[in-house]
């Protein structure tokens, strides 16, 4: 019973992945509407000449927040793993 449920759900996920791979924006085609919007408006909206920084810190600020959180977690993990043992 459990194997049937897992098999059916894996089949659905595989179908969705294949559909996504077939429907993806073709590589090398002219840029989509979102790219045009960012190229045309980033200088007026964000006021920066560097479009990459505008995307990283403003249009996709949540992504950068996640990266910063992952860095914090990695540093905490290393410090916990390699810390000096006190009281020995």
């Amino acid at each position, binding site marked *: 019973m459990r194997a049937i449920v897992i098999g059916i759900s894996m089949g659905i996920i595989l179908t969705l992945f294949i559909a996504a791979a077939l429907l993806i924006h073709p590589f090398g085609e002219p840029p989509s509407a979102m790219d045009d919007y960012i190229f045309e408006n980033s*200088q007026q*909206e964000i*006021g920066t000449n560097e479009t990459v920084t505008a995307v990283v810190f*403003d249009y996709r600020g949540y992504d*950068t927040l996640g990266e*910063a959180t992952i860095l914090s977690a*990695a540093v905490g993990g290393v410090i916990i793993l390699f810390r000096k043992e006190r009281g020995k």
Partner: protein
Amino acid sequence: MGTMISKIVRTMSDIIAPLVFVYGAYVIIHGHMTPGGGFQGGAVFASGAGLLIVAFGAYSLQQKLKDKQVTLLESAGSLLFIGLGFAGLAVTFFFNFLVGTSFFGHIPPTGANAGDFWTAGVLPLMNIAVGLKVIAGIAVVMLTIALATTEVKK
């Protein structure tokens, strides 16, 4: 005191490390005008700290640099970044509320232009916050691993 590396390497690291620090700081501060930003400049700066760790050993660097203070710097950068995100909450999270004001708020002309340092709103401040975070994070990771491995060797 760990293994001592040759005098040539130590002298050259003494000369090169300040240049690496200055270049990393430049990449962070000019992140809203030239390629690079907080993450890249922080990695450059922290590689200078790695040079010092390799050349002079982790113990001599640890006497100058307490890892508690460096961890505090990392948390400060993190809080500054999230605080700047929350500061624009009057419109949305991560809203660039400084555009149009006189503090980092100039708007450059559309198209290719020479650039102006006082542009981009909160982006330079966020670059500095993320830069502090990356500098402190990578430096404390390298220092902790170097200390742990030298103790194992001894």
